[in-house]
């Protein structure tokens, strides 16, 4: 019952309201002369320095869902759940040079979305539309999943009800507040709130990793308890180490997730909002601090095992909601007021990425659908207006997903989302380096990768939840006719097929002399930096808190 959790609820509510107030005030923070421009509303004026970018991208990549789902995975499957650590280590060296090129060319041409870049690079509004729709489709369920994070916390505090409306009312209210301040303040709201969110999460996790092992008999005892649990289960795939059959899955999942991460529109939004190439470079070394945090959070799953946590029942009879293990661990082991702080950290942690994701999806709609197909002569002010309204629509859609559909549906969609966003790698990722691919071939590759990826996901059963389809991302290689129990990450296979098809089709189309689009970028565009003469001075502002290197004079 919620009455037993009164202290937690009060602390949670107070912190939540405090952050909401910050969200509304954010419109005045580093205020531009003219907010009615997509660069201002959607990219914070492209002026964020090192610290703001660190908090913003960190808050964007390491979401509330991650903080709840990764330990839940460790709780259920063990070592395989730790893939989040190599994933978020390799991603930064992997994209180090790529993001710099993306930032420069976007700054030079005023691109707001990845589809903007593809449109100019390949001279193809159709390819840009495909990229935009892929981005929106991959982002929507991600927003819905942030709600799953908040719900896990609310459920643990006993804030539930019998009817659909009563159960979801707190989430609807939370998202209405979020929608209102995002509408007003744009990207400045999550940027400002991210400071509070991340500070709370760092405090909670530092306390957790020092205090909980002390209470549970030390780290050795925690790992031994997890080991004992996995040895007692009949499932062959779990354990505190990987086995022969899931190593390939572990490696391909980490690599595939890393390749996909900065193809998501919301992560690119965080990157494009930064002020200079140096800001991005420094962040590639600074963002792994969050990876350490994530690794420690993952281990909360084992602490929950050692503490004897039993997850709350799920939506359906006979199932358990393993996403509740971390909130329950806090509830069992922390004093009430500190559990309230921890819950607020998760709740607020959901708001930051949800806001950035809805802004990114709205920008895609505005730039690549509205302006391209509905109103070609839209002014900058009209673009900003449409984006603001679209961000509301996106959030209503996300809430509707959670309220009216089984949350499992959002989790399935998110799984698919990771695979489909990877299919934009040839056009967006490789497109930053080479113009060799033919626009028609990129579309053909996308179709092949999408088709194969969704088919493979459909084929995967999950014995634990007794589902025949969409049971995970680990595809058994025996379905391809190999005589082996090994599994592989679907996304990697799909993107490889995508690349092969795109390459072969490029050769065919070039041989057939099919007209290709023109490239609207020039080689120098990929290296422009803050302070270059040719850049439009309108968006240049001073007054950031981070010392800037003196801009090299030309």
């Amino acid at each position: 019952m919620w009455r037993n959790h009164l202290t937690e609820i009060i602390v949670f509510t107070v912190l939540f309201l405090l952050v909401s107030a910050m969200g509304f005030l954010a419109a005045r923070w580093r205020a531009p002369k003219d907010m009615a421009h997509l660069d201002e509303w959607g990219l914070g004026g492209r002026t964020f320095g090192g610290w703001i970018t660190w908090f913003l991208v960190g808050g964007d990549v390491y979401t509330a869902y991650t903080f709840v789902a990764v330990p839940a995975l460790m709780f259920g499957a063990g070592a395989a759940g730790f893939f989040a650590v190599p994933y978020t280590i390799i991603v930064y060296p992997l994209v180090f040079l790529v993001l710099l090129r993306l930032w420069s060319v976007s700054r030079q041409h005023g691109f707001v979305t990845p589809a903007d870049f593809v449109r100019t690079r390949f001279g193809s509004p159709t390819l840009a539309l495909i990229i935009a729709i892929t981005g929106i489709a991959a982002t929507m369920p991600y927003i819905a999943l942030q709600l799953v994070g908040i719900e896990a916390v609310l459920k643990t505090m006993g804030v539930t009800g019998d009817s659909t409306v009563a159960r979801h009312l707190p989430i609807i209210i939370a998202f209405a507040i979020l929608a209102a301040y995002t509408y007003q303040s744009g990207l400045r709201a999550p940027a400002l709130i991210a400071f509070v969110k991340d500070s709370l999460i760092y405090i909670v996790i530092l306390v957790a990793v020092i205090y909980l092992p002390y209470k549970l008999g030390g780290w050795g005892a925690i790992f031994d308890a997890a080991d004992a649990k996995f040895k007692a289960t009949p499932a062959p795939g779990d354990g505190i180490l990987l086995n022969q059959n899931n190593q390939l899955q572990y490696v391909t999942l980490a690599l595939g997730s890393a390749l996909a991460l900065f193809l998501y529109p919301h992560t690119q939004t965080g990157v494009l909002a930064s002020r200079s190439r140096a800001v991005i470079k420094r962040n590639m070394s600074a963002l792994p601090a969050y990876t350490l945090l994530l690794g420690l959070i993952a281990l909360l799953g084992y602490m929950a095992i050692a503490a004897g946590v039993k997850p709350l029942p799920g939506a359906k009879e006979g199932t358990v909601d393993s996403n509740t293990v971390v909130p329950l661990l806090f509830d069992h082991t922390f004093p009430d007021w500190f559990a309230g702080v921890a819950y607020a950290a998760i709740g607020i942690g959901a708001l930051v990425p949800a806001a950035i994701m809805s802004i990114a999806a709205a920008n895609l709609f505005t730039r690549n659908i509205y302006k391209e197909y509905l109103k070609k002569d839209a002014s900058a002010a009209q673009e900003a207006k449409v984006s603001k309204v679209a961000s509301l629509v996106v959030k209503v859609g996300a809430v509707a997903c959670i309220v009216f559909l089984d949350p499992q549906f959002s989790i399935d969609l998110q799984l698919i989302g990771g695979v489909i966003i990877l299919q934009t790698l040839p056009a967006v990722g490789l497109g930053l380096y080479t113009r060799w691919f033919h626009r028609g071939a990129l579309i053909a590759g996308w179709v092949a990768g999408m088709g194969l990826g969704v088919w493979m996901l459909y084929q995967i059963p999950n014995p634990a939840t007794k589902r025949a389809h969409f049971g995970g991302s680990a595809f058994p290689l025996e379905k391809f006719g190999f005589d082996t129990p090994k599994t592989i990450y679907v996304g990697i296979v799909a993107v490889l097929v995508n690349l092969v098809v795109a390459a072969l089709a490029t050769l065919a189309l070039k041989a057939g002399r099919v007209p290709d689009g023109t490239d609207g970028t020039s080689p120098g565009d990929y290296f422009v930096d803050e302070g270059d003469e040719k850049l439009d001075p309108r968006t240049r502002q001073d007054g950031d808190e981070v010392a800037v290197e003196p801009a090299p004079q030309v």
Partner: protein
Amino acid sequence: MSEPPVTAEPPGDVSPPREATDRSPWNWLLILPIVVPLAPALFNMDSPRLFGFPAYYWVQLAFIVLGVATTSVVYRMTRDRAVRS
């Protein structure tokens, strides 16, 4: 991915004259923290334990240091190679 294509700079058609490039031998260093964390043979074992952590966990967490070190080195070593003339 770390190697940009060789492209001739079209003289004069972009305004400030520059020899823009992000090529540097230091960039090859970035391959190290991509490949090493993807080799389970290096860390998929229980001993030696460190502060109670099986090797699987502390070694992978230690790779964070490898990642930070290499990106920092590449940033520092390529910063002074001014990209403009």
